[in-house]
């Protein structure tokens, strides 16, 4: 069925089709990675192909080959009902898994052609470290951002242990949000709130709350704090009005 597609491809991009085969009935074309985007757009727009269903994009790692990675894309046409597999071999043998900043392996993104390629390409980037040029939002998807290495590469040991990561900094939030937002047990004063200006202010405003401060400490600090609070507040009022 999809012989038509392969023939159309051969006609249009004679030099860029490196190899074709139909093993187990799946028609496959290995193409020049430089023409990856162009060929994809042709498959989508040409009326003989009309590949409007995006199926899958993935990669296979062959560390022994000269071109290490094979990007594999599967497409289907709804009207014509045919399928085709498109492959491109990229990467050099010395493109070692350098863990970070290994952007030697690159290919064009097909996200402008099929929006569905977005997450699939992110996954390939996450798992293999293949960089897709022109991808709108290329970041890790299944792994966390601090993950080191690319797990589906053949030289990534399966039993490798990842380093522990630091607690991420929570971005500044306005009250009533904070680090312990949403926790019922977090809605109380903790030790680390003692020096927090907001807490001091809150305590000053409501001296009758017995839980927060011992009675002996209450009076004197409260009045002092109140003065401080009014001083603080004063400059902020004109801002509000404006």
């Amino acid at each position, binding site marked *: 069925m999809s012989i038509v597609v392969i023939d159309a491809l051969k006609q249009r991009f004679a030099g860029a089709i490196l190899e074709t085969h139909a093993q187990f009935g*799946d028609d496959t074309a290995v193409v020049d990675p430089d023409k990856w985007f162009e060929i994809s757009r042709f498959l989508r727009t040409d009326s003989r192909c009309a590949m409007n269903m995006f199926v899958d994009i993935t990669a296979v790692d062959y560390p022994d080959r000269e071109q290490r990675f094979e990007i594999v894309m599967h497409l289907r046409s709804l009207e014509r009902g045919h399928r085709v597999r498109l492959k491109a071999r990229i990467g050099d043998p010395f493109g070692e898994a350098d863990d970070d900043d290994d952007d030697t392996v690159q290919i064009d993104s097909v996200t402008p052609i099929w929006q*569905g390629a977005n997450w699939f390409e992110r996954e390939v980037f996450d798992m293999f470290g293949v960089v897709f040029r022109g991808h709108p939002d290329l970041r890790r998807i299944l792994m966390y951002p601090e993950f080191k290495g690319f797990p589906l590469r053949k030289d990534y040991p399966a039993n490798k242990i990842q380093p522990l990561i630091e607690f991420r900094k929570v971005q500044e939030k306005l009250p009533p949000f904070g680090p312990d937002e949403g926790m019922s047990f977090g809605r109380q004063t903790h030790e680390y709130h003692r020096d927090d200006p907001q807490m001091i202010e809150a305590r000053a405003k409501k001296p009758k709350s017995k839980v927060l401060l011992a009675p002996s400490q209450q009076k004197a600090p409260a009045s002092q704090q109140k003065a401080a609070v009014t001083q603080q507040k004063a400059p902020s009022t004109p801002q509000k009005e404006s």
Partner: protein
Amino acid sequence: MEPLDQDLEEGELEMPADPMSLNLGPSHPAMHGTVRIVVELSGETITKADVQIGYLHRGFEKMCERGTWNQIYPYVDRLNYVSPMLNNVGFSLAVEKMLGVTVPERSQYYRVALGELARISDHLTCNGAMAMELGAFTPFLWNIRAREMIWDILEEETGARLTHSFGRVGGMAMPPSKYFKDMVRATLPRVLAVVLESEQLLLKNRIFLDRLENVGRISKEDALDFGWTGPCLRSTGVPYDVRRAHPYLVYDRLEFDVPVGSTGDNFDRFMCREEEIRQSIRILEQCMDQMPDEGPMNIDDPRVVLPEKEDVYTTIEATIQHFKIVMEGIKVPAGEVYSYTEAGNGELGFYLVSDGSGTPYRCRIRPPCFAITQCLDKLIVGAMIPDVVPTFGSMNMIGGECDH
């Protein structure tokens, strides 16, 4: 943060001018599946959404590269843990496509029957959970009751309620039990009755309908563009069903309709699933009539199928064969294959690469709900927070499958 017992006057509060960002999940009672959605709100309207998955990532594809072909079955069970039998069948078909073998007729019918039972339970769970998240608890219990009846059959057949690991390359682990057909025939009308009851509770409910209709709409073209398949794609009006478009097993001999929706909103997705339950029941009824009672379950190829246990203990040939299959694995010819079946959520694809040894070189799964979930942010932008719950529920995102 100020204490709760503080009386704050509204005028003293500084209202933020920036859009409020809200974090839903990764573990949220109103969402099934571990997914995190970071939304930016303007009032109650979502202006920006970022869907983050990966909380259930277990390195399925890496694990597959370490064992033999048959050792992958427990892993595929845990991909879509609501309908594991469909994954079992899908993976079996992929390996068999590489080996170039076809299982006997009886086995094909058996696979279809078990697969359709799993599909019913998948759709029941999805629709029930979605109704529950919208506050309708009773239909959920009703659907689970029906699912329980199906799981009883599966338990009787496979020995496990959820993770069956029942498929094998070249056949099934066991032939159908003696009363398989009777059990299915007796259960189907009961399931149908329960489905009808739970449907009646929902389909005339104003609240339920208001929250589904015209919420989370997607056009036909967009759905295709995003790689949607299964009930979600059919709800937009595209009659694409792998069972119909590229028939496998014995689906070409069975009569069934492919239900399609018209608008592609949450309600259509819900109704497509409801109708597919009925169609699966139809398929099962025909299956029970056509399935032969006698005949082999597995292909007759000692290189692929384990010999009978009795022979293993009594003859040296079978012992050696057993040893070689278990220790070295099946020798699948070198090459690559992409095989696709219709799972509960859509086209479940397996892209396998073999180097001729007993271990897969690469085992790639194309999870249907991965493609569907990537569209979630587009659907909820412009909607309100309460719309996230039914939209996400109707997509039937399965964490195990989506996160590999």
